């Protein structure tokens, strides 16, 4: 089979002229939501936003309004975390917006996708890893601040008598181990979500660049 001999058949391979019915079908297609991977990632991000709002706003209100305002500090802390989440979602959304340029040349679009998706996964791993130790440290500070150790409580009593650095060390060693574990879990999960996609895009780029 010679490719050149098929050109004529290929070029005359046309679908029937579009009628009123087909126009309606195409209009219906435009109304549908995109099923592409990027659109799915964006929808997942919106779901994350909704989940965080649903979890944090009631908690913040709870600490501000109940306990006669004595635990408002925890409310402020949660509010701070919510602000950090805002930055996190903003960054992720910006990366998603930058990820694709379908009107660009195919090669530059692929390069852009690989670059942005790599940044996206790095950010995902970094924030996913730091979130748990950050929350643990915040909880520790809250407990130390709002609930000072009672003399009768053996563990807290001993901790309160020891120097502050021993106290912190006691917390930091398991926290560091947990963080390392979380890091590898995140690397595995992100690799499972996007690893194959990135590899395939890189292979396509290599193929395009190769002579």
């Amino acid at each position, binding site marked *: 089979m010679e*490719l050149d001999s098929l050109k004529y*058949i*290929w070029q005359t*391979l046309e679908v*029937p002229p579009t009628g009123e019915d087909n126009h309606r079908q195409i209009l219906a297609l435009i109304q549908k939501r*995109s099923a592409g991977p990027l659109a799915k990632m964006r929808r997942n991000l919106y779901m994350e936003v909704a989940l965080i709002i649903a979890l944090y706003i009631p908690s913040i209100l709870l600490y501000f309004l109940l306990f006669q305002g004595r635990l408002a500090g925890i409310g402020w802390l949660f509010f701070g975390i919510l602000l950090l989440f805002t930055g996190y979602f903003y960054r992720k959304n910006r990366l998603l917006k930058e990820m694709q340029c379908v009107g660009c040349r195919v*090669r530059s679009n692929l390069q852009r996708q690989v670059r942005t998706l790599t940044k996206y996964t790095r950010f995902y791993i970094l924030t996913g890893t730091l979130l748990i130790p950050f929350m643990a440290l915040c909880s520790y500070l809250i407990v130390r601040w709002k609930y000072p150790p009672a003399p009768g409580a053996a563990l807290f009593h001993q901790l309160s008598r020891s120097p502050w650095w021993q106290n912190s060390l006691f917390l930091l060693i398991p926290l560091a181990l947990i963080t390392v574990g979380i890091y590898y879990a995140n690397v595995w999960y992100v690799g499972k979500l996007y690893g194959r996609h990135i590899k395939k*895009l890189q292979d*396509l780029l290599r193929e395009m660049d190769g002579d």
Partner: protein
Amino acid sequence: MLHKVCRLYCYDEHDRQDLFQEIIVQLWRSYPGFRGESKFSTWLYRIALNTAISDLRRQKRRTTPLDPDQIPTYFQDIRYGAEEEDQLQQLYAAIERLTEVEKALVMLYLEDKSYDEMEEILGINQNNLRVKMNRIKEKLRKITKEAAYGTR
């Protein structure tokens, strides 16, 4: 043209419809950003090929057959004479074994695009394009030969 891209990148009707829909959605969304810096047809090919190549998850085969009555009219292939039909089927079968980039090149070649235009669409330099095109032709010849021997 969009149907041809869908036909090259997807092997069953369901996937073809999904890809067609995705290309239409991308065209609709990207049109306000079209500044006329390239020819409209070049831009159209870029959108179609970018969508088809990047959307890798769609490229897996489905096994569930689709009811022909559910296929929209714009997807019903035009019928040719037996010999032409046979050649086209051979072409599709051979193209199935090409990579995504090779499919894009074949598509543009069959559309009689110049190497200038191919470079504008794909972003691969012309020397590289020529080398690749020769290799693809050779590969297609080999695939067709193998298929012919296999059927004897």
